[in-house]
């Protein structure tokens, strides 16, 4: 390879990498923001009076933005809240059902239980079940996700490696439930 060609190749490659990084860094920033905001929300919402529970239009777009990567799963919001939130002075309490999220390996739906502004339980109502492998994957990922969510107190948790679709569907549905709860 001639020097000029090598120099041109290096310049072009570095430019391409820089562009890639520049495009990707908003994702880094937004993830960090989400994580930060989620933590702040979790701490403040307990103190704040229960926010409106009358916004049952839990849209998938908000949830998708919060999930790790822009989701391809198209969320179909269905009756988001099954249980009316019992507003207390300290925080939200009740069980809220998230939207059904369709992924290529099947539908996902979770419900979240809140007690006094704290996520105490996440129940998977529906997991990817297109085939036996999907079932295996989601059965493996669901407990991991639940633990992570309880720890983070939000839907902003890291992707479970090897179960990306499950993660996306799970967290999207969870975010819809949390939105419905006004969490």
């Amino acid at each position, binding site marked *: 390879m001639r020097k000029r060609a090598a120099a041109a*190749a290096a310049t072009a490659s570095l430019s391409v990498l820089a562009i890639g990084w520049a495009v990707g860094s908003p994702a880094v920033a937004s*993830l960090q923001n989400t994580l930060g905001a989620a933590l702040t929300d979790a701490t403040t919402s307990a103190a704040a009076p229960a926010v409106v529970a009358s916004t049952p239009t839990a849209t998938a777009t908000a949830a998708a933005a919060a999930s790790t990567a822009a989701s391809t799963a198209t969320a179909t919001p269905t009756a988001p809240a099954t249980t009316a939130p019992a507003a207390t002075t300290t925080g939200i309490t009740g069980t809220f059902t998230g939207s059904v999220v369709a992924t290529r390996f099947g539908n996902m739906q979770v419900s979240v239980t809140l007690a006094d502004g704290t996520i105490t339980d996440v129940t998977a109502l529906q997991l990817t079940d297109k085939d036996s492998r999907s079932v295996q994957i989601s059965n493996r990922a669901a407990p991991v996700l639940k633990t992570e969510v309880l720890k983070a107190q939000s839907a902003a948790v890291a992707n479970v490696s090897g179960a990306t679709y499950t993660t996306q569907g799970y967290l999207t549905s969870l975010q819809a439930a949390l939105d419905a709860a006004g969490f």
Partner: protein
Amino acid sequence: MSLDTRARQHNARPRIHPNYPRRMRLADTLQILAVVSVALVVAVFLADGGAARISTPADAITALGIVTGLVGTDLLLVMMLLAARLPAIDRAFGHDSAMALHQSLGKPALYLILAHAVLLTIGYALVQPAGFFDEVWIMFTSLPDMPLAFLGLGLLIAVVVTSLVIVRHKFRYEVWHLVHLLSYVAVLVAIPHQLSVGTLFREGSLQRYYWLALYAGVAGSIILFRFIVPIVRSLRARLTVVGVDQEARGVVSIRLSGRQLRSLKAKSGQFFIWRFWTPGLWWQAHPFSLSAAPTHNSLRITVRGLGDASSTLPRLPVGTRVSFEGPYGLFTDFARTSPRIVLIAAGIGVAPIRSLLETATFAPGQATVLLRSSTVDDTYLVEELAALCRARGAELRIIAGKRAPGTSSWLPGDAVRARITLATLVPKLREADVYICGPRKWTDEVVRDARSAGLPTRQIHFERFDW
């Protein structure tokens, strides 16, 4: 005397053939594209927020695993393009250099793919958490399309291992070639897991289309230039054997006749990969160089019975249909950079030298032909060479004699002792393009001699065929 001459020669800039800058621009462009394609897949990973997902060591290992997989696969695709007989690649680098580059990429690509598998297994195992081999089993059974991906990895290892030079000589060419074809299978079976595991190439994303377009481009090139073009050309040319001439013991010239051969744009010094449609030979393909300048209706190759199939070629019946791939190679006048020319041949390497001598551009007195052999008797096509040299004003030298054992020179032992080198054999060597064709090791030694005489790479041309 020699000192003065050399000093003058050093300052005199040889006239660069107009093809050379154009060819180098094409070569530069192709090389830059190849390098940028690697950067681009990494950039795609970054743009998708690949770096954003790194928050734990396990994430970092997983991300690195993804990147090694992307780069390794990109290199595999570049390798396949290099072997796809793309006309642009052949014109820029020549078949020999392209295949050398293809070979040199084989191990790095395999290592990257292996790193991809190992790193991702570790990354996943840390999250699970599970042991390494437990995780392999989990991946194998629970992730979509992973059994196929493991199959691809196994095939890739098999292909690269059989391609390593040492192993290659233990196999018949056809067996090696068949194993090599498995690399296409290896690349194909790896596609599903790239699309279904992980989100980088998720449905509907821009990068998925880019990735698939890469594959489609490579597959299209292979199908077009390795299958469709040769088949169409063979059908149109309708080549048949019109004569087999005994040149020496075990050496024959095969004369072929066909039609519309001008459209092949074949040049003296190029080779084709031939297939002779007789009951015993149709399943083998052999690379042989043109030993005479091609005309609109005839081609000629000269072959020595080295391999098991080549030894049956002398009995090739007249009228045998011949199909071919080619013409390939940059061992032609197209690669010239200098006004003078030196043609050096050993053994059956004389074939492309003979055709080059017929049509290469040079004025009388500007060409030298060096024919190297152990004894004066085992030279081929000497009468033809002598006649051509007389007609075109070239100098012919036959250098016969055994090489001294233990020395690494392309010249006979007594010549080495007399301190004879390429520079002392050929006047005004630095104003010449040197074309070398012979056995691999011998060729390397001539190339070394030419380099030490101060010839730049662009003035040294050689085409080595392995079998």
